[in-house]
């Protein structure tokens, strides 16, 4: 085995251990906020969340068609099938305004998360 192979394999071993460290950071009790998609609109269209805290958005799509919650500012894309519910974890966010929209109905399905 070459020195490089040993280095790579040692690195792999180290990195394989990382998942355990990552899992220890699970969001067990993140504050929960709810959004509803109805008639291609987000209700409410403004969600105020605590800054610097990871939060859990529960999005319920009451429309029969799928919608995608999308926000580049929040670094999230999540498809919610018609009549289904999805969980989106966001943050921790610096204080500010973070717009989001519905990928399939961007003209109407718009909203924003305010971290304060």
């Amino acid at each position, binding site marked *: 085995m070459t020195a490089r192979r040993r280095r790579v394999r040692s690195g792999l071993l180290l990195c394989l251990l990382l998942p355990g460290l990552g899992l220890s950071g699970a969001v067990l009790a993140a504050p929960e906020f709810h959004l509803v998609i109805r008639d291609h609109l987000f209700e409410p269209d403004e969600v105020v969340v605590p800054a610097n805290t990871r939060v859990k958005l529960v999005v319920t799509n009451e429309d029969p068609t799928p919608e995608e919650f999308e926000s580049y500012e929040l670094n999230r894309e999540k498809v919610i099938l018609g009549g289904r519910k999805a969980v989106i974890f966001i943050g921790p966010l610096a204080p500010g305004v973070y717009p989001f929209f519905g*990928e399939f109905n961007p003209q109407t399905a718009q909203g924003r998360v305010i971290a304060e």
Partner: protein
Amino acid sequence: MRIVTSRGLGAALMLLNLPVMADGLAIDKVYHPYVDPLVWELEYRAIAADDNPATGQGRSQVHRLSIGRAVAPNLALEAYLVGEDNRDGGFSVSDYEVEALWQLTEQGEYALDYGLLFELEKSRKDDAWESAVSLLLERELGRYSVTANLELGYEWGDDIRDEWETGLALQSRYRYRQELEPALELYMGEDTVGIGPAGLGTFRLGPGRSLHWEAAVILGVDNTTPDYTLRALLEYEF
């Protein structure tokens, strides 16, 4: 699959009546541990590498064309045609490949996001197979995202030496704007250690349609990696 078969090396070793090896560049792309349901993906990838000191192969190109789709909210399948274009000869389809990406955790649910990538590749003409499984990890740090791919692969067949291979790919990107994200990439594998700047981004083309691009210049940092490797990717989602 990041283990690029080296036909030039294969031909040289066959002349020497030695077992054929398939070692080559470990530079391809960095996978993210997320599945985007409901969309089809058409992807084109190109890799152009300078002379490869480890294999003796001259400048080479590898092209990949694929189509993919999620078959479940957390599972996507993709099928590839792989072509090689060397200076010495023409261009031809050299390999077939299928891959499955399994998103294991919800984005942001844990300190790291997890996914698994399974790949299976078959040489079109030779009895040479390659399979690999990669652990995909991603961590969001404010406007930065750091992604790691840890690959364990196995090659087998009458025209290839049976062996295990490992690979590591890292990408750190700054989410400057959706259309342009500067990044730094590092690749390590057997006979490959390379690092270099990259850029990526996505253009929205309408509801449910987008064009994603990536480009990178990876510089070899040891004496077995090509001095430079250029990679480019275009992906159309619809």
